[in-house]
């Protein structure tokens, strides 16, 4: 028994269109679910870290999200804060919680993602900033630039992006709580509305109201709780903030830098990973990560995913719960929760046999931020 960080509880709300419930309501529900799963009480919580979703944190950020949520949950934690890292935020707060509990700064750290875009525009509002004058709106435009580069450099075809979309829905069909469970075919993908070419509607993640929470504690503390803890074996971040000025920004994600660090501290390499949960705001990001984490060679992700390789019956299932493309936009925290369920052996119909290791990633803002988490049963 040690102070090593483990995940002892997970919980989330329904994901989808939930008008009438604020993000605060959703976050409180997810927090209660995670505590119930772990078997701890609110008075046991001495750490609170939050990842405010796109409509809550990136634009406003005036009242710190953790402070308001902490007040609402009646918490006076020893350690607290919010991370504004876009889609890397959820993985980053798990990392920060792991560091905090291992350093003895707190012992039971609640990590929460939540958002309610159906009642709040936030980052989904169009038409701000100098680039809006050119009609450059939304994350889809930026990721379209990356997809175009990949197609230009490596001959990647739309149907290879489509493999990612089809696989996500096939996984979601086996996930009872997923927002989009209807299977799609490659024909459906080809017929999908072009939004910002080369990306179609089915290349884009869902927009969801919902919240998800994870309890991080020490291995020692978890020994008294309902579940054996899922161990945090490795973690790292890397960022590309110079954006357009960077020679690599649209071609290689910072995952190429933080992936080997996170895997290395776990003593693992890509072939050792049983469950792969890659941040999938757009299909192209899954292709780039398969390359940049080293699951295939640079430029070869298109052919690599063909034939359903990352689908439920493939040799390398990716995002077994459907991910942001089909399970729901959970900011990356649902990816963490799916990893925990797989490593506990609780994933039901979609369980990966003998799952002992998982890699979870987060990617955010203008392709600027990246965080990696390696978990083990």
């Amino acid at each position, binding site marked *: 028994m040690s102070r090593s960080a483990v995940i002892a509880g997970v919980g989330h709300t329904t994901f989808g269109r939930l008008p009438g419930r604020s993000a605060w309501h959703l976050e409180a529900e997810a927090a209660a679910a995670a505590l119930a799963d772990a078997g701890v009480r609110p008075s046991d919580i001495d750490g609170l870290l939050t990842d405010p979703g796109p409509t809550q944190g990136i634009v406003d950020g005036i009242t710190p999200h953790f402070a308001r949520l902490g007040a609402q949950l009646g918490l006076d934690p020893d350690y607290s804060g919010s991370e504004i890292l876009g889609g890397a935020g959820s993985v980053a707060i798990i990392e920060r919680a792991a560091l905090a509990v291992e350093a003895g700064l707190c012992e039971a750290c609640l990590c929460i993602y939540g958002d309610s875009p159906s009642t709040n525009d936030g980052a989904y509002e169009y038409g701000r900033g*100098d680039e809006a*004058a*050119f*009609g450059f709106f939304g994350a889809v435009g930026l990721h379209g630039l990356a997809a175009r580069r990949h197609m230009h450099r490596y001959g990647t075809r739309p149907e290879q992006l489509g493999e990612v979309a089809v696989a996500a829905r096939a996984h979601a069909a086996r996930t009872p709580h997923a927002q989009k469970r209807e299977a799609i075919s490659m024909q459906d993908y080809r017929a999908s*509305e*072009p939004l910002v070419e080369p990306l179609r509607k089915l290349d884009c993640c869902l927009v969801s109201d919902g919240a998800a929470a994870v309890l991080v504690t020490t291995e020692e503390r978890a020994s008294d709780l309902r579940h054996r803890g899922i161990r945090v074996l490795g973690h790292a971040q890397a960022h590309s903030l110079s954006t357009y000025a960077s020679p690599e920004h649209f071609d290689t994600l910072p995952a190429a830098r933080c992936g080997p660090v996170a895997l290395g501290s776990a003593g693992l390499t890509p072939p050792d990973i049983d469950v792969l949960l890659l941040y999938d705001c757009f299909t192209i990001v899954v292709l780039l990560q398969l390359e940049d984490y080293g699951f295939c060679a640079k430029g070869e992700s298109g052919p690599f995913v063909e034939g359903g390789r990352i689908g439920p019956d493939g040799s390398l299932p990716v995002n077994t719960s459907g991910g942001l493309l089909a399970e729901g936009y959970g900011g990356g925290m649902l990816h963490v929760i799916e990893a925990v369920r797989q490593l506990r052996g609780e994933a039901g119909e979609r369980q990966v046999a003998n799952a002992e290791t998982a890699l979870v990633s987060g990617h955010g803002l203008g392709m600027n931020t990246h965080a990696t988490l390696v978990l083990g049963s």
Partner: protein
Amino acid sequence: MPDPMLPQPQPDALTAPFWEACRRRALEVSACDECGHLFLPPGPCCPRCWCERLTPREVCGRGRVFSFVVYRRTYHPAIPAPYVVALVELEEGPRLVSNIVGCTPDEVAVDMQVEVRFDEAGSFTLPRFVPASARRETT
């Protein structure tokens, strides 16, 4: 008259000189007095050496399409689809987001040579780009 609804640039102390130069139909980048690095967007110091002595430098206006997207859905009523947004790499090195105009979206390609063209848009002048060959034909 341009649609008054068109989203307008929002200049601040750092970027106002760039937009003022556009009004004079000049495309300017920032040049570091110390190391000579040329960069966009304008900032408080050179992003290479952190020197604060910077001078605006007019560039030739030629470049290439580093990557591009075609908006097929209209997201803003003042900017009807289809239109092309590109990341243009200037001959001098810096990159900027702009539009490719003067050709159809299907004619745009990565690495295509382009040249700047200044368009009035509300109270701003926007630096847009046209295919370099098309520009030569019209001048």
